C-alpha cells in the first residue's frame, strides 16, 4: 500500500510527500562531499554530509550559536594550570549499525582515544588509511598542543596539553574532532578493508548514513536510539544540485525544503515568494584589506588611518554584496562572543583623509598597489570590483593604486611572503572562538603566515596571549574587547565587510536555525504535516 501511495505521489507531479513513508526532508546541497570522514577533509560540504548529521563530538555548539555545551562528554574540568582537561563521558550512547557492522558495545573512552590518535600518531594503524593528511587537525596546531591522551577508565578521558590554551575546548566542537567507533575500525581492519570506515560512516549522531550515489544523492535514516532523542524527521535526503538557479527552481517546485547559497540576484524574488521563508544572519567571516606595515608608507599609523577614512564602505557593500553583506568595524563578526559593540569605525571623510596624509608627509599622495583575489569567497563575492572602488576612492585623496592579481594558489603564497603593498583577503571562522580570528590573523606568530598585514604590535599581542591562558569566559571577553579597540586605533586593516548568509527554506519547515559556522545540521528540524 505504501508503495502505491508513493507511486501516486511520484506521478502527482514532483512535490515531495509527507506521510505514507514518514517525513522526508530534502536538502538541495551545493556539491558532492569529498568523503564521509570529517577528519580527512576541510570543506563545509563534506562536514554537512558527515560530521553534522552522522557524528557527535565531545562537546558541541548550541544550535544556531557559537556557545559550547556538553556533547558526548557530559561534563569536564580544567586543572588550575590549564594543562589538563578531564572529560566525563556520557553513558548509554549507541552507535549506528550497517549491513557490514553491528556494534556490540556503547560509546566509551576507547572511541575517543582512537579518534584523536588516528590523526595524531603516525604509528596508529589507521593513520595512513584513505591517504589521511588531517589538514584541520594539523591546521589547528593539535600536534603541538597535545602531550598525551589518557584513558582513565571506560568513561573518563584526560587530555594533557603542552601549554594552556583556552580555545582548546572550542576546537573539540569542530568537525575534525568527531568521534568515530573504535570497534568498527578494529573490525574493518581485521577484515582487511580499513578504508570502509571512511566511506560508510558509523557514528553516534542523529542520522544514520544509508546510501550515497556520487554527485547525485545522499540518504540518511533518522537514528531511533539517538541519545538526545529520535529526530523529528524520519528520512533525510541530500539532493546534490550544483547550480544555484536550479536549486531555487527545485525549492519553488517543492522538490526540496532547504537550499544553501542562493544567487544574490534571486533574493528579492525569494522574499516575495509565498511558500518560501527567507532567513538571514551575518556569516562567521570577515573580508578585509590588509596594509603591509613592513613597507613604507604603511608603517605610519596616520597613513593607515587616513586610507581607512578615504574608503566609502557603504557604497562597496551596496555594489559588491548587493545587500548580502554588512559593513565590518571589528576584525571578528558579530555572531562571535566578545564582539565589541563599542568600537567606533573610521567615518568616510575624504577631506580629513587628505589632510591627515599631508600631515603625515604625503601632501601629494603616493603610488601603491591593491591585490585583488581571483576567486569568489563568501566574505568577498567580487574582489576585482571591490579593488576598483577602493582605487577610485583613494585616487580622490591623491593615492594612485594599481590593481594586481594572480592565480589563487599563487596569490595566497605571494601575499603570505609579503610581496603586496595592500591585499584583499578574508577569513571564515573555525571554532567560533575570538582567538581563531585575532591570534591567527593579527598575532605575531602569524607574520609570514596568515597575518597578511605583517603587523606585530606588543600591546595587542599581550592582550590576546593573556586571553589564551585564562579559561574564564567573562575575563577573556574583556581582554578581547580591549584588543579590538587597540586594533581599530592602530588600523593595520580596513575591515570591509561581513557577508550576510541567506537561507531560503520552504514554509513547511519548522525550527530550522541558521548555523553560524555555515553548516547545515538537521537535528531539531521538523516538517509540518
Amino acid at each position, binding site marked *: 500500500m505504501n508503495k502505491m501511495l508513493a507511486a501516486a505521489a511520484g506521478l502527482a507531479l514532483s512535490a515531495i510527500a509527507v506521510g505514507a513513508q514518514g517525513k522526508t526532508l530534502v536538502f538541495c546541497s551545493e556539491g558532492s562531499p569529498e568523503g564521509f570522514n570529517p577528519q580527512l577533509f576541510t570543506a563545509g560540504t563534506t562536514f554537512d554530509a558527515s560530521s553534522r548529521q552522522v557524528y557527535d563530538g565531545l562537546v558541541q555548539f548550541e544550535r544556531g550559536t557559537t556557545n559550547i555545551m556538553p556533547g558526548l562528554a557530559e561534563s569536564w574540568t580544567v586543572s588550575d594550570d590549564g594543562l589538563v582537561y578531564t572529560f566525563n563521558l556520557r553513558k548509554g550512547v549507541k552507535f549506528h549499525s550497517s549491513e557490514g557492522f553491528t556494534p556490540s558495545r556503547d560509546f566509551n573512552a576507547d572511541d575517543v582515544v582512537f579518534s584523536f590518535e588516528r590523526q595524531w600518531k603516525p604509528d596508529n594503524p589507521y593513520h595512513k588509511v584513505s*591517504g589521511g593528511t588531517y589538514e584541520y587537525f594539523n591546521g589547528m596546531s593539535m600536534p603541538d598542543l597535545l602531550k598525551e591522551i589518557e584513558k582513565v577508565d571506560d568513561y573518563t578521558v584526560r587530555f594533557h596539553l603542552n601549554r594552556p590554551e583556552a580555545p582548546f575546548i572550542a576546537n573539540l566542537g569542530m568537525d575534525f574532532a568527531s568521534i568515530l567507533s573504535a570497534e568498527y575500525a578494529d573490525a574493518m581492519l581485521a577484515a582487511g578493508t580499513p578504508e570502509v570506515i571512511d566511506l560508510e560512516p558509523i557514528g553516534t549522531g542523529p542520522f544514520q548514513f544509508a546510501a550515497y550515489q556520487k554527485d547525485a544523492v545522499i540518504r540518511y535514516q533518522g537514528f531511533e536510539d539517538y541519545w538526545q532523542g529520535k529526530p523529528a524527521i524520519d528520512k533525510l535526503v541530500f539532493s546534490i*544540485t550544483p547550480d544555484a538557479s536550479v536549486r531555487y527552481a527545485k525549492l519553488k517546485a517543492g522538490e526540496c525544503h532547504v537550499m544553501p547559497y542562493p544567487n544574490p540576484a534571486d533574493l528579492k524574488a525569494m522574499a516575495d515568494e509565498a511558500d518560501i521563508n527567507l532567513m538571514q544572519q551575518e556569516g562567521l567571516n570577515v573580508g578585509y584589506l590588509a596594509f603591509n606595515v613592513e613597507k613604507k608608507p604603511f608603517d605610519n599609523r596616520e597613513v593607515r588611518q587616513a586610507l581607512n577614512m578615504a574608503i566609502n564602505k557603504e557604497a562597496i557593500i551596496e555594489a559588491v554584496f548587493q545587500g548580502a553583506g554588512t559593513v565590518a568595524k571589528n576584525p571578528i563578526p558579530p555572531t562571535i562572543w566578545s564582539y565589541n559593540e563599542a568600537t567606533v569605525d573610521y567615518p568616510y571623510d575624504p577631506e580629513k583623509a587628505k589632510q591627515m596624509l599631508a600631515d603625515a608627509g604625503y601632501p601629494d599622495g603616493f603610488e601603491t598597489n591593491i591585490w585583488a583575489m581571483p576567486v569568489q569567497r563568501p566574505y568577498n563575492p567580487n574582489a576585482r570590483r571591490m579593488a576598483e572602488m577602493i582605487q577610485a576612492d583613494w585616487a580622490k585623496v591623491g593615492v594612485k593604486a594599481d590593481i594586481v592579481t594572480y592565480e589563487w594558489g599563487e596569490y595566497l603564497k605571494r601575499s603570505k611572503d609579503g610581496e603586496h603593498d595592500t591585499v584583499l583577503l578574508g577569513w571564515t571562522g573555525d571554532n567560533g572562538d575570538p582567538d581563531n580570528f585575532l591570534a591567527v590573523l593579527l598575532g605575531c606568530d602569524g607574520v609570514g603566515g596568515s597575518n597578511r598585514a605583517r603587523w606585530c604590535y606588543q600591546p595587542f599581542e599581550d592582550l590576546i596571549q593573556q586571553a589564551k591562558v585564562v579559561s574564564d569566559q567573562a575575563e577573556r571577553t574583556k581582554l578581547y574587547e580591549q584588543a579590538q579597540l587597540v586594533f581599530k586605533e592602530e588600523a593595520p586593516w580596513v575591515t570591509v565587510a561581513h557577508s550576510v548568509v541567506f537561507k531560503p527554506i520552504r514554509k513547511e519547515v519548522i525550527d530550522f536555525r541558521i548555523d553560524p559556522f555555515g553548516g547545515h545540521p538537521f537535528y531539531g528540524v521538523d516538517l509540518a504535516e
Partner: protein
Amino acid sequence: MLQFLLKRLALVIPAFFGVTLLTFALIHLIPGDPVLLMAGERGIAPERHEELRREMGLDRPMVIQYLHYIGGVFQGDLGKSLISKKPVMEEFLTLFPATIELSLCAMIFAVTIGLPAGILAAVRRGTVFDHSVMAVSLTGYSMPIFWWGLLLILLFSVQLGWTPVSGRISALYWVDTVTGFMLIDSLLSDEAGAFTSAVRHLILPSIVLGTIPLAVIARMTRSATLEVLREDYIRTARAKGLSPMRVIGLHALRNALIPVITVIGLQVGVLLAGAILTETIFAWPGVGKWLVESIGRRDYPAVQGGILLVATVVILVNLVVDILYGVINPRIRHTR
C-alpha cells in the same frame, strides 16, 4: 575489408597518444597547485606542503611524471584522484553510465526528430514547412545550452509543473545502484512508480542536450537528401513509376545516409562536450560535471584519466562509424 579495418585501427594509436600528451600538457600548463588550493586562506606550513607534494608525486620532473603516467595507463592504471584518493577508473565508471544514459536518450531524440524533419524538408523544398524546419534548426544550433536549459526548467517544471526540475529520480525512491543506468535500476527495484519517475527526469535534459545535434542532423539530412534527389537514378526510379515512398525510402535515403551517419558519429563528441553544461544544470551525476570540478581543483590524475577515457570513447565511436559506412558504401571500403 580487413585491410580497411587495420588501416583505421592503426590511425587510432597516434590519436590516443596525442590525447594523453595534450591533456597532460594542458592541465599542467594552467597555473595552480592542488595543495595550495586545498589549503585556501588557512595556509599550510612549507614542510607539510613539500611532504604532500611528494606524496602526490608532484615534486618530480614533468617528463618523469608523464612517463610514469603513461606507464600506468598501459597497465590500465589511471592513478588515484588527489582529492578523494579513489582510483580514477572507479570514479569514472560510477559516473559514466549516467552520461551514457543521458547521451543515448538525447541522441535518440535528435535522430528520431532530426532525420524525418530533414527528409520532409528536402522533399517539400521551398514550402513553408521547409523554411520553418530550417529556421528552427538554425535557432537550435545557435542556442546557448545553459540558458535554454534554465528556460525549459522555468517553463515546464516551475510554471507548468509537468516535469521535475533536476536529478535522476524523485527523492522519494531509494533505488539501489545495480547497473548505474537509472532506467534499468528503477525497473529492477520493486518500487512502483520509480521507473516513471526516472523517465520523467530524463525528458528535459535529453531535449536540452539533443537540441544542437538535432539541428545539425536535420540540416545535414536535408542537404544530403536534396543532393541525392537530383541524381539521375532517382529520376530513373521515378520514371519507372515507383511510388514516392519507395523512391525516397529505398533509393534516396540509403545514399543520403552516408554523410548523415558521419555527422551523427561526430555529434558524439559534441554530445559529451554538451553534457558538461547539461549535467551541471540538471544536477546530473555524470562525467562532464566531474571533469569540470576536477579541473577547478587541479586534480591532475582525474582530469588526465577522465579526458583520456572520454577521448577513447569518442575515438572508438568514430572508428565504428568509419567501419559502418564501409558497410553501407562499398566505394569507401574498396578505395585504396
